[in-house]
């Protein structure tokens, strides 16, 4: 699906409210992301960034509000949605190998009575090669380094060949070289016309990586270009002055 052939937003969130046991995590968030954009989600810890992604994939049920992916309600979405989990939320002792995990990307389109076919296997191979883990197919995921683990889940998202990619902190805790490489992979996915929503923690790089920025702290504080969003007064409101100690270093780096 190329961005030109339909004007429907890839991700359309209207008045989304989510709470856990009475505690609000997201309040009345609304935004619409056009296809083919790479969008960064920025906000302090506990701002509801992961909750937003979980609501988008239908894992948590919103209290109210409307979510449309490629124009249809999320649970009936015709285009597929790939998800890259935050590294800390997974059980790394789970008995799966690298190849098993990447193959999970193919499950989305595989009918339940079918076994993976040659096309699935070649897609898995290609995705692993793209991310430089082609030599590790039989390695249990628990034995990988942090960077390799992140590559595996990115490979899974690529193998899924999805129109929309939702990534929860894919760049956290990586060395500079790996981060650069993975950002390149993400940028290539965008060039192919895919839409990416990336939870990101580093204000200093956000301006370089993303086309648009979502500022989130339970409420939506803004959605727009990095030039408009990464302004000191905007950031101060989102982070509720928690950035004060780092004022000079971070803000100067962040403001393009």
């Amino acid at each position, binding site marked *: 699906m190329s961005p030109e052939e339909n004007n429907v937003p890839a991700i359309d969130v209207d008045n989304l409210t989510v709470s856990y*046991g*009475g505690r609000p995590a997201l309040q009345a968030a609304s935004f619409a992301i056009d296809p083919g954009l790479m969008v960064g989600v920025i906000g302090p810890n506990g701002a509801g960034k992961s909750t937003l*992604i*979980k609501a988008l*994939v*239908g*894992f948590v049920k919103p209290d109210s509000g409307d979510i449309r992916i490629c124009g249809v309600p999320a*649970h009936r979405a015709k285009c*597929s*949605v*790939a*998800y890259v*989990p935050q590294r800390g*939320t*997974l*059980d790394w002792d*789970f*008995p*799966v*190998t690298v190849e*098993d995990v990447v193959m*999970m990307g193919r*499950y*989305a389109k*595989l009918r*339940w*009575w079918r076994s993976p076919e040659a096309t699935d296997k070649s897609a898995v191979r290609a995705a692993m090669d793209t991310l430089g883990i082609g030599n590790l197919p039989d390695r*249990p995921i628990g034995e990988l380094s942090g960077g390799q683990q992140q590559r595996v889940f990115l490979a*899974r998202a690529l193998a*899924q060949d999805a129109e929309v990619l*939702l990534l929860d902190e894919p760049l956290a805790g990586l060395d500079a070289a790996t981060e650069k490489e993975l950002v390149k992979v993400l940028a290539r996915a965008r060039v192919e016309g895919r839409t990416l929503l990336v939870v990101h923690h580093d204000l200093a790089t956000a301006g370089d990586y993303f086309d648009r920025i979502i500022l989130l702290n339970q409420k939506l504080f803004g959605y727009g270009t990095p030039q408009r969003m990464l302004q000191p007064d905007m950031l101060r409101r989102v982070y509720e002055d928690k950035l004060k100690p780092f004022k000079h270093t971070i803000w100067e780096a962040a403001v393009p």
Partner: protein
Amino acid sequence: MSTGFIHFFLVPLQETYFQKALIAGSIVAIACGVIGCLVILNRMAFLGDALSHAMLCGVAGGYLIMKLVFGVEAHSFGMIIGSLVAALLAIALVSFVSLVPRIKEDTAIGIMYSATFSLGLVIISLFIDRIHISISNFVMGDILGIVDADLWASMFVCCLVLSFIYVFFRHFQIASFDPVMAASIGIPLVLVQSTLTAGVALVVVTGINMVGVILIVGFLITPAATAYLICDRLARMMILAAIFGVVSVFGGLYLSLFINSASGATIMLFAVLQFLVVLIVAPKYGLFARWRHSPVAPPRQVLKRPVKSVLL
């Protein structure tokens, strides 16, 4: 010497009760081992406890209804249906109590499994002239007293559960490993979870005949945990867990014959011994492997936690 040895293994095999014990025990061991892998990976062991204790209530209820309504004594399928109803009831009670955020799930399970077990005991004691259930068999199991109906019931349940896991293997795998991704590709998580719970309940019902309420949870998770120490892929872990389970049944039954001990408990002890041996010698995740790979002089900070640093 060698004829005596063969004699020891062959003579019991001529007894029908021993054949039935081996066959029924193996069937349940296979089902327990396979579904047990999903139980430990989903951290449901405590739920297995709750289910098994609710069974007494269900068995008694099923027995009573079959007897009062149809006049049939100790009807196997009646008791299995009763147990399933009780299992569902137990789960409903647990989720009902967990509605209050302050009562966590394990607390709710702790309360409800004693509640349902007590209810079962009360029912049996109220209708003591109508219900002939041996509490000690229920608690300890009676693998040497398997009747044909139990054998068929466990065969049916085992095939049902195994074919479900075979057909929906990918669903179970991904829902256990990465539930958010599972939701994102449209896997109905609630349905998968309920199917798994129902499967556990079925296996527990049939297993109680063999090893009893107290031991069934061990039967469910010990072979699976043993396999977990060796395997890096879920499918292999399931196959190996089934094998470990069957080996425990054979080993335990022969051992119980040899030393003249309670069969169900001996089977469980055999399974635990097997686990401990694997725990020590497992090539990658065993204790030997850890000792071998740990640095000669552990960093000072580790030494501040004495017990753990001595062992690991």
